């Protein structure tokens, strides 16, 4: 029971704080450390990819090499971290028993299933009870997909990215890189070159996906970079709600996570994308933790709507700006975010709303909670193009400070090129007041419970956008993440 031992060691080091710090003992199929064309080819061949996919990866790789040589790793974000040695990372790790591709859950390594169990991933029965289709990404390979059949009857495709490349090449070819091209930014290029796996969903015209689609990501192997790629397409008039949860085990070294998510909402469709990000944040002293550099973007066509909701409590560093290109007339973009930083965590997160179509409307509600030495930056861009007649944006940025060693920063950037636009911006900074705490404690809540209630209440506007069970989990996560910060 090595993993049991690991659990107790983990809790010695970090106390209650990171619940998911255990390592599963599964043989891993590792490519050698470092990045070069051969590794890109290896990843592609491991996944039995067609030639066009390899070509695309190689183009991205060569582009990234140029960026790397010209030192174009972005530095504008308000985060500090030691220089990443891209040659000191494993770019491919597949759990061994999965290279023989399990046909069903029965074929999956029981230890792996036990790991999912510990993570609380509602696979199998629990998934069914919860009405969730789970596509679990364990390190790099998609392990199990439930509900495929039920969804299949509606023409919904929900599978791992690799499977989509093999089985639905037309859809992938048409949309891959259409919203986040491989030239988009340093991390997006890196991802395009070495992306390991991820999820793919397609909802046919007029279909309302009857269940929440869910992917659980988890980084397992030490020094593994995880580079998932997710592509979701809602065809005309379709609706889908997609949930993404992330955890990573406790490690003293840093791990790199550079994901790309592309959403395509065709005319009259709606995509709701919710994330709970709980990657390992590092020890309370600031050792280890995940570097989370993510590019997420969606395109909304005529009358379409894209909503991003995120609760970000994990990672040593979060660099993430889920964005919407409001291309079609009357399209709607929404961004609801709670980002929490405690101890030595740093978050630079926000959104971009790019208004192109007429009567487009965007809403931004960004809430940052800083505790300990945490540093939280909201970075947002609202861009109203000349074609966007009567565009409307409402932005609300709220910061909550706990203690006096943490920081909150807001960097809103607004560019209006059409005079008919209407924009509103509200911002607030608050502290949990002694009056509030005493009021709750006088009614019998402990200091920690009181803090938790105040913070959850403060985050309500965002939490209520989450599916119910996720909202409960999010609230629990805030509680765990704040342990030690209060009292």
């Amino acid at each position: 029971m090595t993993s049991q031992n690991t659990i107790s060691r983990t809790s010695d080091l970090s106390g209650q704080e990171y619940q998911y710090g255990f390592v599963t003992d599964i043989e891993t199929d590792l490519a050698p450390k470092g990045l070069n064309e051969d590794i890109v080819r290896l990843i592609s061949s491991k996944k039995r990819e067609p030639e066009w996919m390899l070509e695309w990866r190689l183009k991205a790789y060569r582009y990234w090499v140029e960026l790397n040589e010209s030192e174009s790793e972005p530095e504008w974000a308000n985060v500090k971290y030691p220089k990443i040695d891209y040659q000191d990372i494993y770019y491919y790790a597949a759990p061994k028993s999965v290279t023989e591709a399990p046909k069903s859950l029965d074929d999956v390594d029981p230890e792996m299933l036990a790991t999912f169990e510990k993570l609380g991933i509602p696979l199998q029965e629990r998934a069914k009870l919860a009405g969730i289709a789970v596509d679990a990404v364990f390190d790099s390979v998609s392990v199990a997909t439930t509900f495929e059949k039920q969804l299949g009857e509606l023409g919904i495709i929900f599978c791992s990215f690799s499977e989509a490349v093999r089985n639905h090449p037309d859809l992938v070819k048409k949309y891959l890189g259409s919203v986040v091209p491989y030239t988009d930014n340093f991390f997006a290029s890196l991802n395009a070159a070495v992306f390991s796996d991820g999820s793919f969903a397609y909802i046919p015209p007029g279909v309302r996906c009857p269940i929440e689609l869910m992917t659980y990501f988890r980084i397992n192997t030490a020094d593994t970079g995880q580079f998932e790629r997710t592509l979701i397409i809602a065809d005309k008039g379709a609706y889908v709600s997609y949930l993404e949860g992330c955890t990573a085990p406790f490690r003293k070294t840093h791990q790199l996570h550079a994901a790309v998510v592309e959403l395509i909402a065709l005319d009259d469709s709606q995509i709701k994308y919710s994330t709970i990000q709980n990657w390992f944040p590092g020890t309370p002293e600031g050792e280890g933790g995940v570097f989370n550099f993510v590019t997420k973007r969606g395109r909304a066509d005529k009358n379409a709507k894209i909503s991003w909701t995120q609760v970000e409590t994990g990672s040593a560093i979060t660099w993430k700006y889920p964005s919407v290109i409001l291309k079609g007339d009357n399209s709607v973009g929404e961004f609801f975010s709670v980002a929490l930083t405690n101890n030595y965590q740093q978050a630079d997160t926000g959104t971009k709303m790019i208004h192109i179509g007429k009567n487009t409307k965007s809403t931004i509600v960004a809430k940052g909670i800083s505790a300990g030495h945490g540093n939280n930056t909201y970075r947002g861009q609202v861009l109203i193009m000349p074609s966007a007649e009567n565009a409307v944006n409402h932005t609300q940025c709220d910061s909550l400070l706990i203690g006096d060693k943490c920081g909150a920063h807001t960097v809103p950037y607004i560019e209006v090129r059409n005079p008919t636009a209407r924009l509103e911006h509200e911002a607030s900074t608050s502290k949990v007041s002694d009056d509030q705490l005493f009021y709750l404690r006088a009614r019998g809540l402990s200091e920690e419970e009181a803090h938790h209630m105040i913070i959850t209440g403060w985050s309500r506007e965002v939490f209520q956008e989450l599916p119910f069970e996720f909202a409960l989990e999010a609230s629990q996560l805030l509680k765990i993440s704040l342990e030690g910060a209060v009292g």
Partner: protein
Amino acid sequence: MLEIQNLRVSVLDIDDSEILKGIDLKVNNGEVHAIMGPNGSGKSTLANVLMGRPDYVITEGDILYDGKSIVALLPEHRAHLGMFLAFQYPAEIPGVRPWQFLKAALDARADARGEEKMSVRDFSKLFDEKVEAVGINPQLVKRSLNEGFSGGEKKRHEMLQLEVLKPELAILDETDSGLDVDALRIVAEGVNSMRSPDRSFIIVTHYQRLLNYIKPDVVHILIDGRIVKTGGPELALKVEKDGYKPYTSVGATA
């Protein structure tokens, strides 16, 4: 039930800030005590110190609850013992629903006492009943705790909590201030219906009016951090007529 012995209290971290200058007070089971006194005399400070507010230090004296000193207890532990403070200025807490808050308060106390928690269904029923009893607009309690509540609505909401939590010792800090006649009657009816041999009340008020509805056993006059006079209900009438002047001079010469 409650015994305050020579209690001296200052503001934490402020020199020469003594507010309570030696308070002695004994509240027996089932008694209702009224405390009156001019603005700034220390009534709220006393109420808050009884409940354990961390902003104050006790420099001398003791507070006994059922014979045991509680000065070292945290506010939440005092609540678990059965103490309750209806606040003069209840705090506003955005995003927290009154329902959720009150259920959490009940659960925390049940947990601490090792009692079974009230089921959600029973609680909902009780809550709705009491919302009606204290005359709060049901729409109001769907909003955030005290946020955007009018002065009177806040006070009614304090009464709602009192009636659901049914504490053994209830301290009401000017719960009658800013109330219309109807609300005043609701407060009085609430207190009267809860009066029992094993429940005591300390009612801080500026108005004799309330005491027409709630007959106190004892009335205290608190001036400049001291109880300068203790008597029966007639004392409140006297204050109403003559003001605090007579007692100020008593306090000064004593």
